[in-house]
């Protein structure tokens, strides 16, 4: 081989050739590997950052924060009065104080009086304020420490902006799972059947139309899909089903299915197309119909790929922010009814991150949710990688 490609002459020794090749190869290799390692490092750094920001939850650092808040009560900004007074002869400061909504009743409204309660189809016992919160109402907000924040994690109430903030992750988790299940129940069968149709039944012409059209759905920004759900889908489905709450888990699920379908479709279609032609031919030669071949030969043979596609779809729905923000109603209600509002993890981060103060408990909790999402998508990818590639693939290849 060597002698054919590189005729041995006196000018090129083997040594010199090796060196020349080494330099260019070496450079290319290093550049490519450094890019790969950089991307791994970036992902790792993001994870460390997200997790680090949620760390204050695990250590007690709330004391200093509470102290500054208590102190700050007495301060008021000075007002820039000179020109304002020229503008208005009446006293400037007095009016500022007047322009407040009238109070009703006595100034100190007791919290027992105005306790949030549930209504509608939601089961009442789930949504009433737990008795621990009642005691927290009584104590001043400075008492809010790390252990109490933790105990509220397992309640169902998400009230982060309050005198006694409650971070009920349970309600958010249930909401997220509810939307994900609804979206996957709609998107999964539709996308897989569409993929089966295009790869097994459709003529080449039809396939060339359907495939780009479905893939174009992936090009829609999620804001557009969310807006469409908010304005059109919500009213349409309310007319059809006649439920109470206009924005609910079902609408969110439908809108997210629109976002997940192109992903599931594309990957399933690739998996179905990758099934060897010999399978089809053998099946047809044995006298099976086209329909039987598609469902009992090609579909099972492509199962690992379809499974991976579904997992990716779940990942997409789980992390979808904008659609959840606009279409699900964002009320953390716990009920089995799919036509009730829900609040998802990602939407919570999306709507509340903008104004949280650095280092505050609320901020840390949002980052904690972020790391939960990260861990979840990591686990999902791991399942897709190891289970599908390892076990399912072997099982279907008959090994």
């Amino acid at each position, binding site marked *: 081989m060597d002698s054919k490609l590189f005729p041995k002459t006196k000018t090129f020794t083997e040594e010199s050739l090796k060196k020349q090749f080494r330099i260019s190869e070496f450079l290319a290799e290093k550049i490519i590997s450094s890019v790969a390692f950089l991307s791994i490092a970036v992902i790792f750094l993001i994870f460390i950052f997200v997790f680090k920001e949620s760390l204050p939850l695990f250590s007690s650092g709330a004391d200093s924060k509470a102290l500054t*808040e208590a*102190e*700050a009560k*007495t*301060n*008021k*900004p*000075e*007002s*820039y009065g000179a*020109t*304002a007074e020229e*503008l*208005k002869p009446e006293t400037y400061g007095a009016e*500022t104080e007047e*322009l*407040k*909504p*009238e109070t*009703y009743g006595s100034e100190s409204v007791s*919290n027992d*009086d*105005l*306790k*949030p*309660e*549930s*209504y*509608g189809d*939601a089961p009442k016992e789930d*949504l009433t304020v737990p008795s621990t919160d009642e005691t927290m109402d009584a104590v001043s907000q400075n008492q809010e420490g790390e252990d109490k924040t933790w105990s509220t994690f397992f309640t169902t*109430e998400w*009230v*982060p*902006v*309050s005198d006694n903030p409650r971070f009920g992750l349970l*309600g958010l988790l249930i909401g997220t799972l509810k939307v994900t299940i609804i979206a996957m129940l709609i998107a999964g069968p539709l996308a897989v059947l569409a993929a089966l149709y295009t790869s097994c039944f459709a003529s080449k012409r039809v396939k060339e139309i359907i495939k780009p059209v479905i893939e174009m759905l992936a090009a829609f920004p999620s804001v557009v899909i969310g807006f469409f759900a*908010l*304005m059109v889908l*919500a*009213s349409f489905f309310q007319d059809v089903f006649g439920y*109470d*709450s*206009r*924005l609910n888990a079902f609408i969110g699920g439908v809108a997210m299915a629109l976002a997940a379908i192109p992903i599931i479709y594309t990957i399933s279609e690739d998996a179905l197309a990758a099934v060897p032609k010999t399978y089809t031919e053998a099946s047809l030669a044995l006298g099976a119909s086209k329909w039987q071949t598609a469902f009992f030969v090609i579909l099972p043979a492509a199962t690992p790929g379809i499974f991976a596609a579904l997992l990716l779809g779940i990942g997409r729905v789980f992390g979808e922010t904008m659609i959840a*923000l*606009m279409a699900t*109603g*964002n*009320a*953390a*209600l716990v009920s089995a009814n799919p036509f009730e*509002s829900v609040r998802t993890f990602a939407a919570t981060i999306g*709507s*509340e*991150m*903008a*104004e*949280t*103060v650095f280092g505050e408990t609320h901020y840390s909790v949002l980052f904690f949710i972020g790391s939960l999402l990260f861990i979840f998508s990591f686990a999902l990818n791991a399942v897709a990688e190891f289970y599908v590639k390892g076990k399912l693939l072997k099982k279907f290849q008959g090994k």
Partner: protein
Amino acid sequence: MNTTKFKIAVLLIAVMTIGFSFTTINKVTVKGSDTMVILSQKWAEVYMKKNPGASIQVTGGGSGVGLAALINGSTDIANSSRPIKASEIEKLKARYNSMGVEIPCAKDGLSVYLNKANPVTSLTLKQIGQIFAGKITNWNEVGGPDAPIKLYGRESSSGTFGFFKDNVVRTDFSPSCQTLPGTAAIVNAVKKDKFSIGYGGAAYAEGVKDCAVKKDDKSPGILPTAATIKNHTYPISRYLYMYLKSKPTGEAKAFIDWILSSEGQTLIAEVGYYPLK
């Protein structure tokens, strides 16, 4: 050799003059409340037309975002649809040793929206508070038909949310209150949902009914109109503020003085809010 050096020198000077000329333009950045962003842009637009040398940059993001940017030093003026919080003043004080300067620059009425088909036309402040707290859950408790009340509100990062919570609800919002991004989304939701209630700026109420608000059981219901908000008979009205680190100087002072002048104030009504006077 000499000529190339000369050329480089000339080039450098040219670049430096151009660069310097950019820095001398008086740039004022305004950041904050989404409620005020249209108003602020209008002010900036008209002001810059009148003063070609000035450059006013307006961005939204929310009241808290604007105040955070003021604390971080990345904006000159922070717009806010709610008064500054004590914790934010504390941060300003720690960083700049000043309590900040508060400039009320317009008035706004917070309207309670009802669907046009809803027979209920007026509510007391207490009833509104109890409805949003989840204490009253059926319209028949406030003289309406027997139907559950659907609540629509803003997300907790909104200044409108904070104002409504502190001054009307006075406790936590009901967990069943659906939070939507933006007042327009709330108006749209209330427009489509017969037994719903929402809140937001009075200027946004298109296609929905303003609820007449009573201070207590005996007083008459007052609709949020220009007159009632300006003379402060409508109970839920608020100031829109501009916040600065310290007393304004230079271009920022000129801009603010112009806003507070009658010329700047007349623009407020065009956008849908209410002038100070």
